[in-house]
């Protein structure tokens, strides 16, 4: 062990005190994003696309309408859970306005866009379930199951 470090003890103590003081005021790195926020964003985007397809492709109107309804409810429930855990700092801030997505006019392409979206959403949600807190595991498990079930009505 080196006894004489060459740094006067007083300097070290001052340095420690400054570091501690800095720790009090420094907000530190922001907390990691809530994983459910990404699920909520995806649900909202899926609902918007399904709404656009429901009006652009009459043959898919019924199924796409179901996707829009269910994924819209997912977005609402997931956002509520994110905000329950971490209330938003400003209540006036809202999501930036999004331009409605362009729906593929072609039935085949539209159907593929919907099913691919549901498959990706199911996978993303399922991947979170094993490690989530219990209440959230139930909610996200239901979202997973709903995405898989929606493919049956397309």
């Amino acid at each position, binding site marked *: 062990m080196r006894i004489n470090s060459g740094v006067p003890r007083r300097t070290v103590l001052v340095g420690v005190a400054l570091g501690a003081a800095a720790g009090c005021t420094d907000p530190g790195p922001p907390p990691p994003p809530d994983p459910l926020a990404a699920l909520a964003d995806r649900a909202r985007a899926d609902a918007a696309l399904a709404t656009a397809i429901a009006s652009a492709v009459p043959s898919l109107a019924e199924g796409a309408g179901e996707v829009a309804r269910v994924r819209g409810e*997912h977005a609402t429930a997931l956002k509520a859970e994110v905000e329950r855990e971490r209330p938003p700092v400003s209540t006036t801030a809202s999501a930036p306005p999004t331009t409605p997505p362009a729906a593929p006019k072609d039935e085949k392409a539209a159907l593929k866009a919907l099913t691919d979206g549901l498959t990706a959403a199911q996978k993303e949600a399922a991947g979170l379930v094993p*490690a989530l807190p219990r209440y959230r595991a*139930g909610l996200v498990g239901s*979202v*997973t199951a709903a995405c898989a079930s929606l493919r*049956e009505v397309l």
Partner: protein
Amino acid sequence: MSQPGMPQETVAAVQAALGAEHAALWVYGLVSAFLPAAYDKALREGVAEHRERRDATAELLAAAGITPAPAEAAYVPPEPVEDEASAAKLVATAETDATVAWRAVLERCDDKALRESALAALTQSAIRATRWRLAAGSDAAVPSFPGQP
């Protein structure tokens, strides 16, 4: 997935899910007489999957030193089964009951392997419930949150 010392609330939820699997198998057996051949494949798949789930669940409990709950001798359908539509509706009900039971397991366990298997059971039953609701001519084929009681 052997886990000695399974928490009490997890045991209760898994036993309830096993009960839902027993009930679903009984229902599949009951309805087959009322459904035309076009349903044979769906019936076979449903029975095979519920049997597998029932056996795996009973083994999981036994491995934790718990006696798996046996099937009831018979079950009482909420409505009499008289034809194709009422038969399909009863299967949809049994599958829906299974989704509720398996989601409850998700909310009452922390074990990752059990979570994965409960999620698979919830998802597969939700898919089948949707198919049987469509077969029964139900309007709302996809609940927004399958398994939510």
